[in-house]
């Protein structure tokens, strides 16, 4: 690969990592906001999303510029294409964080329905998967991507579990429905975040192995 192209790709990777770090931060903050019932933190998360959208659009523009001017082929093309689509997945993940914050705003004034056990686990796995997927992309470690994809099953399982648990709360007392529903939606958002990260991993495998892998979409809940 020519040095010119190599430098441009390095630059794009850097920008992608920056975006991923911003999103990671949003995942963390939106959870803390939920746990602490902190409305101010929710607002912060919601407002931060503008920065993330801007960063994402900048990255998209830059990727197009590199494609137009450098005419990449083969692995270079797949890497750049991966960055282009990862950009979209990251931006959607950030949107999910905003949704989590907005939902939190609606129940923040009431005490927690129940101690949060599974949701933090989901959040932790998301963070772990995000870190791993970015690492595997930067280090061309397709094995790590394959392992990370399996973690998505755990998230799917946790989602099903939360659903069954909250169902009982809703059936028990109609006054629980609002809060239970909120937690249910938040769980689904984490589940979607997990799916997006799975996309990142699949793309990494395509970029470096040239093989398209489509894992099954999230397992059915029932």
């Amino acid at each position: 690969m020519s040095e010119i192209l190599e430098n441009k790709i390095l630059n794009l990777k850097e920008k992608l990592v920056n975006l991923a770090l911003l999103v990671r931060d949003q995942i963390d903050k939106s959870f803390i906001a939920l746990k602490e019932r902190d409305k101010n933190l929710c607002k912060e998360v919601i407002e931060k999303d503008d920065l993330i959208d801007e960063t994402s659009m900048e990255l998209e523009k830059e990727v197009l510029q590199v494609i137009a001017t450098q005419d990449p082929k083969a692995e270079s093309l797949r890497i750049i294409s991966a960055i282009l689509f990862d950009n979209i997945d990251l931006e959607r993940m950030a949107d999910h964080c905003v949704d989590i914050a907005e939902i939190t705003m609606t129940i923040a004034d009431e005490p927690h329905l129940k101690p949060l056990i599974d949701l933090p686990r989901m959040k932790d796995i998301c963070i772990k998967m995000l870190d791993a997927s970015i690492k595997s992309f930067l280090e061309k470690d397709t094995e790590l991507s394959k392992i990370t994809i399996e973690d998505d099953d755990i998230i799917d399982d946790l989602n099903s579990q939360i659903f069954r648990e909250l169902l009982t709360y809703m059936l028990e007392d109609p006054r629980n429905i609002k809060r239970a529903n909120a937690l249910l939606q938040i769980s689904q958002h984490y589940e979607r975040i997990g799916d997006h990260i799975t996309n990142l991993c699949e793309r990494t495998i395509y970029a470096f192995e040239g093989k398209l892998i489509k894992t099954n979409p999230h397992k059915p809940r029932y």
Partner: protein
Amino acid sequence: MENIILSIRNLNAYFGDSQVLKNIDLDIFKNKITSILGPSGCGKTTFIRCLNRLHELVPKARVEGEILLNGEDIYKMDPMIVRQKIGMVFQKPNPFPTMSIYDNVLAGYILTGIKLTKEEKDRIVEDSLKKSGLWDEVKDNLFKRGVFLSGGQQQRLCIARALAMNPEVLLLDEPTSALDPISTLKIEELMIELKKSVTIILVTHNIGQAGRVSDYTAFFYLGELVEFGTTTDIFTTPKNKKTEEYLIGKIG
């Protein structure tokens, strides 16, 4: 804000009665690579030959307008001084066949009668050949004649020869069109390195090359400057339809 090193105002160029360049207005930014793109016959070679006052040497050629180098009109300067400040590398590598590699690099000084000490000569030869990436390949054969090198090496020798004069601007007229892909790549990487010390204007019909190396792009068509902007803007969002047609290969 970028520095403007060369300012072209209302440039019109003629061959006898036929007008080859019409009202060109363009600014060239310092230490950047500006590529001049366009189909054959669009006037891009005539344009750069006006910049080093080579155009006027052709019989019946005429130039009107202003070209300011750091504010000074080059048509009011001694043409030889202009050519020392604005160097040129041609499409076909043209090292002087009767001179050694050493003398070829110093040819600018030999031909303008500037006297140098042996130390100065050695230093200039080594610096210029290092800058053009040729030093390691020829340092043991400096006194052999330049024509025994490969095409890509000859072209780098010509670049060294131009650089030896410490020009402010370097005009490259399709410098890689006669070379193989590997030499082409080497020279493209060289250009990116060189722009730190000299401003580069690159005429090319190779759109890919313009995209790869240049910071700014000027699109010429039928003797007119159709569009000018950063390469990234021109390649992703050209404002003129002709520019777009050229980029996608519909014309030219």
